[in-house]
């Protein structure tokens, strides 16, 4: 059972981004859970995580996964705590289950919304822990508590056009047995899942042969124009109502329960836990659908949360911020991420390049390492770093990943710049009697400066682009609006992040062109 993939699927399909496509697939997630298991079993990670726990002193930190409902629930929790006089902040769209669970255990966040089915299968990996009290008992061993259900069950459902369902007299999934001609358009991960199409088909003995894989968002369009008749959906998906669809009853109770709850650290203050527990039983499916719909309609998930507090409490900080303020906040954080990581890449990349320029097994090894790092999809690199001690959900992790990405162009250009110096000039430097350090510092590096600078420029531009992915682990930057936009399917919000990021890349390029004139010795520019 894999909520992260549910959410990841939505995001990738819309972004069309090769890297996020790769990394949202099973492999990195598998690696993450493997790594996590490994670390928990064989090292003193818990001790480390406690050392690096950051939330103890500051405000309560609420996390959320990257899909609308999680955003809305996270915002509701933050507002509930704030209203109870407990300072709280909301780290939005931090990624998927494993990342949030690690962050919760590590103390980087204090609470986040989760679903019972996911907890049992993804987190506890225990299919038999079905009752909520059993789950609660197991979680307590990790120092984590769980609220009672919030009141709705967000599970999978098969949906079809209401008119069609009425015409054919289809009300339950069993009713589909009588209509083998119906065309199924299912999301790719539903087709693959252990609790997806194959076992569902067996359980209900479904006869449909015409089954295609289609993206979740596109599927609604296909359903509306009749290209397909049935698709999979989440039961609280606002689009079910918007598109006048009906969810077929799971009459054989095939789909597991996905009761929404909040997970929280048992070390949170009593008042905070009490405030979270006030949310129990306050959200039935209908109401959650309405909140999701409001968030998607207004392209602002905080509005969905507003609707929950019907007395119309003052909107949260995020809402109150004007666009220029947000833009400045995003851009500064973006520059911080890209700048620090670039600095590290330069500090480590140039010496590594110098060593690599000498060739031999060590030189080959350095270039090989830098190239291999470059081939890891950026999202996967983030996901791999998150479970490690010291890193976790933090700006550190984002900067480290960006630093590793920035290495290759600098290392390679430094090495090739040095290797390209003619032998006669190298020998002249030696024959003059200059010491090795002076030769490097006053002769070789200045002569390679053009190549080195162009490597740094490439790194800088790559870093500006890749830094947008930092938002996935809650590190902020211009990726934040891009992620929200992808999630809300709102192009304007995406552009609010994408355009400044592109402009930033251009400005950086321009600044480096100016730097060329200052840093490359005049004699080399003739």
């Amino acid at each position, binding site marked *: 059972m894999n909520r992260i993939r549910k959410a990841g699927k939505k995001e990738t399909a819309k972004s069309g981004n090769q890297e996020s496509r790769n990394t949202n697939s099973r492999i990195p997630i598998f690696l993450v859970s493997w790594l996590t298991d490994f670390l928990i079993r064989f090292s003193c990670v818990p001790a480390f995580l406690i050392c690096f726990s950051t939330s103890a002193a500051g405000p309560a930190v609420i996390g959320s996964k990257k899909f609308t409902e999680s955003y809305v629930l996270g915002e509701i929790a933050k507002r509930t705590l704030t209203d109870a006089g407990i300072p709280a902040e909301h780290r939005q769209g931090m990624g998927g289950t494993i990342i949030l669970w690690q962050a919760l255990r590590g103390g980087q966040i204090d609470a986040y919304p989760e679903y019972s089915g996911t907890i049992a299968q993804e987190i506890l990996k225990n299919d038999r822990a079905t009752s909520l009290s059993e789950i609660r008992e197991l979680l307590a061993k990790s120092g984590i508590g769980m609220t009672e259900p919030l009141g709705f069950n967000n599970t999978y459902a098969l949906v079809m056009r209401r008119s069609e369902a009425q015409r054919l007299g289809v009300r339950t999934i069993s009713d589909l047995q009588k209509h083998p001609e119906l065309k199924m358009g299912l999301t790719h991960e539903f087709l693959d899942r252990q609790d997806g199409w194959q076992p569902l088909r067996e359980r209900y003995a479904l006869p449909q042969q015409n089954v295609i894989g289609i993206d979740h968002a596109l599927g609604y369009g296909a359903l509306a124009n009749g290209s397909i008749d049935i698709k999979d959906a989440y039961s609280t998906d606002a689009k079910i109502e918007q598109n006048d669809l009906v969810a077929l009853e799971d009459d054989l109770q095939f789909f597991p329960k996905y009761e929404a709850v909040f997970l929280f650290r048992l070390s949170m203050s009593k008042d905070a836990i009490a405030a979270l527990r006030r949310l129990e039983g306050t959200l039935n499916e209908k109401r959650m659908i309405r909140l999701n719909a409001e968030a998607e309609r207004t392209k602002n998930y905080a509005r969905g949360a507003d609707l929950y507090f019907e007395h119309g409490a003052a909107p949260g900080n995020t809402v109150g911020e004007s666009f220029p303020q947000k833009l400045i906040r995003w851009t500064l954080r973006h520059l911080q991420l890209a700048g620090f990581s670039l600095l590290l890449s330069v500090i480590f990349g140039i010496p590594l390049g110098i060593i690599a320029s000498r060739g031999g097994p060590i030189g080959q090894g350095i270039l090989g390492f830098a190239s291999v790092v470059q081939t890891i999809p950026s999202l996967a690199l983030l996901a791999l770093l998150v479970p490690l001690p010291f890193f976790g959900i933090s700006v550190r992790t984002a900067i480290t990943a960006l630093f590793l990405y920035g290495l290759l162009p600098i290392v390679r250009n430094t090495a090739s710049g040095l290797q390209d110096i003619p032998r006669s000039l190298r*020998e002249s430097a030696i*024959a003059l*009697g*200059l*010491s090795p350090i002076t030769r490097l510092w006053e*002769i070789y590096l200045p002569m390679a*400066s053009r190549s080195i600078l162009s490597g740094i420029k490439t790194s800088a531009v790559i870093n500006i682009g890749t830094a947008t992915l930092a938002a996935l682990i809650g590190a902020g930057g211009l990726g934040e609006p891009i992620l929200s936009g992808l999630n809300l399917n709102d192009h304007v919000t995406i552009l609010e992040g994408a355009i400044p990021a592109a402009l930033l890349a251009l400005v950086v390029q321009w600044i480096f062109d100016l730097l060329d004139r200052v840093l490359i010795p005049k*004699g080399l520019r003739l």
Partner: protein
Amino acid sequence: MSALVKLVDVTKRYADAAALQPTNLEIERGKTTVLIGPSGCGKSTLLRLIIGLIEPDSGSVTFDGEPIAPDNIEGLRRRIGYVIQEGGLFPHLSARANVLLMARHVGKSRDEMQTKLQELCELTRFSSNLLPRYPAELSGGQRQRVSLMRALMLSPKLLLLDEPLGALDPLVRAALQKDLKEIFGRLGQTALFVTHDLAEANYFGDEIVLMNEGRIVQKGSVADLREKPAGPFVSEFINAQRGLATL
């Protein structure tokens, strides 16, 4: 007075072939010794052994009484000037910076450097107005004059010149040959000059060393080589060059 440089039974092999057969050579102080021979005869290898760019496989090289070894090579190089065909000037440094590079490195005073620079400009007939220029802004002949100044900056005991005039056109070459000879004379400079041009060798050389296939074939003046050739290769080499010269 003993020889400035002594090579005793020096050999050098590169991966596939012997570059230098067991060789003995002494370079006399205050004289210009010219190494001559066809391409690949080992004359550049010999030069590179003396400046320590390569190490001999066997035998020893002694400079001013000191055997050349890795631990003293840096100090010895500062007592040797080295000029190569393309000048070997560093493109990112101005002519002045190229010339002063080593002097700054060993911590010479400003005044001392300035005085020496003026002296060298006069000696090499290089206009001091051109000193701020970069190598790319200088002609081939001017570059070689700067290269020569750089080599002479620390008043070296030995000047090594590896085909220094090879890439210049004939007029510039003739002018530089004349100036060089005059400079050697004025400074009483010990020089080891590599060329493959017999006329040039004759013009400079107090002693001419003819090499072929990694060994020294004959030493002496051009007249010695012509009148008392040590073998058929010597006659062949002399005649080939003379034939061209008389055209």
